[in-house]
């Protein structure tokens, strides 16, 4: 077929004037990043506060108010999961393996007196009393998505402050590369600790830079109140871009180490639960897909599952932590 040449009067750019595609795309990505980071954060914080205000607090436990968090990505705009669901559908094997067990059994957990031992490769190892920890840094409201490795998710308003605040005060040594969290394993109040499902106490860990990331939260409360036992009272970690089990509950010890700490689920099933366990729709669990998730409380039985996002949607904030890493190998 003959295509007539119609160069009549049209100005065509010279090849040298055309922006190369990678440069063009980089600019778009930067704009998106700026929009998500700046505009997004401001808007999200505002909407999140509205959401919190609408929710009110459950009124079951002591109030723990926080100030609006200024950390980028710390307040998602999504609809909050009902407190009833977030506090009755839990994985906390120390209190039983059924989702409803923790809510039924965790009332025996005594959160006073409570101390958190900070030890290992730090210049100032010490033992913190829970009341001391509560006042260490101003409490902030943060609304995070929570994605469980089992394929469900929630949106939970936490109260706490960046774990980095605590880490700075104990001054990690240059040799410290990892942080290990050891959680309570008290047979007298935790019926599950008798089982051999996991090695007790439950341990988890993060690389030091992950632990220092401002989104990594040392949480003391949720929905404007102190944490219920089943959600990890009196103090837990929340790492929103990782599967839920990375966020250790009811912490009694924080240890700084040079080598990657052994973690509870990794020890139980090495090929299923890696050390990193970043939320990743492209890396399936050996026995199920991670491409989608069910948002708890969303639309009832017939609601469609939603697509899971890389790093649970926190890629803008944490993607650089894993630059150059093979996320299929380091799952």
């Amino acid at each position, binding site marked *: 077929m003959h295509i007539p040449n119609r160069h009549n009067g049209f100005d065509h750019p010279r090849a040298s004037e055309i922006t190369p595609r990678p440069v063009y795309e980089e600019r778009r990505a930067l704009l998106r990043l700026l929009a998500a980071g700046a505009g997004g954060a401001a808007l999200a914080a505002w909407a999140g506060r509205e959401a919190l205000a609408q929710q009110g607090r459950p009124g079951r436990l002591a109030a723990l108010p926080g100030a609006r968090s200024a950390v980028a990505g710390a307040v998602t705009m999504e609809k909050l999961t009902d407190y*009833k*669901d977030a506090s009755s559908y839990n994985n906390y094997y120390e209190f039983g393996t059924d989702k409803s067990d923790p809510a039924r059994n965790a009332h025996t957990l005594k959160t006073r007196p409570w101390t958190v031992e900070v030890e290992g490769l730090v210049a100032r190892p010490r033992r913190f009393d829970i009341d001391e920890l509560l006042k260490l840094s101003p409490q902030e409201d943060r609304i995070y998505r929570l994605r469980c490795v089992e394929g*469900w998710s929630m949106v939970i308003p936490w109260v706490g402050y960046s774990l980095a605040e605590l880490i700075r005060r104990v001054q990690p040594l240059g040799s410290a590369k990892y942080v290990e969290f050891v959680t309570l394993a008290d047979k007298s109040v935790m019926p599950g600790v008798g089982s051999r*499902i996991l090695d007790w106490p439950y341990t988890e860990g993060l690389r030091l830079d992950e632990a220092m990331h401002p989104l990594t939260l040392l949480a003391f409360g949720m929905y404007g109140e102190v944490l219920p036992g089943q959600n990890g009272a009196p103090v837990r970690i929340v790492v929103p871009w990782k599967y839920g089990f990375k966020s250790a509950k009811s912490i009694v010890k924080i240890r700084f180490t040079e080598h990657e700490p052994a973690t509870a689920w990794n020890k139980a*099933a090495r090929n299923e639960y890696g050390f990193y366990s970043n939320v990743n729709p492209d890396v399936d669990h050996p026995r*199920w897909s991670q491409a989608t998730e*069910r948002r*708890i*409380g969303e639309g009832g039985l*017939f609601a469609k599952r939603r697509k899971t996002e890389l790093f649970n949607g926190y890629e803008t904030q944490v993607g650089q932590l894993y630059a150059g890493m093979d996320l299929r190998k380091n799952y």
Partner: protein
Amino acid sequence: MSTRGPLHAVAMHAVAKPVLHLLCLLPLAWLVYAAAADGLGANPAEALIRSLGDWTLRLLCLTLAVTPLRVLLGLPALARFRRMLGVYAFVYAALHLLAYAWFDMGLDAGEIARDVAKRPFILVGMCAFTLMLALAATSFNRAIRWLGGRRWQRLHRSVYLIALLALLHFFWMRAGKNDFAEVFVYAAIVAVLLLARVVLFLGHRLQVGKLSTR
């Protein structure tokens, strides 16, 4: 033989079958009610799928219990409930599969096929269901005549395989969490029921042997 005892009278009573029908439908009725009344907890889809699976396994155990109980209690009348219990096991299995296909997979055939290929425990469950389908499809009297009693019986012996596949399906589902307590309970029940058959079979052989040697 105590075939004319009070238990026999109960088993042969005219309302025995209707009552059993109602009992078998009770869990389903409760699940439907709970689903409608928002009583299935935070993750109703998961609760529904798992409950239907649990009831499939329970009804399979009951079906397998009929023959040993019949012999143990000397109550041949029990045999008339066996097929019915088996069909109910199938009904719950079919609903279990439907709930999975609908609530987990959005009734997307491609998604289901990918899931079956990727997840061995789903594949095992599908195998068990396919066999159950074959048994349910030949569960009426005319099918026995079509197939001939012997072939029909041979086909229906695959209920033993179904029970083992169902157990493997359950075991594998729980394997990710190392949480086998419930699996072991069902495994123990199925083991006892299958062992009872071995004992019955050997006892039968022994009797036949005695008769032929003396």
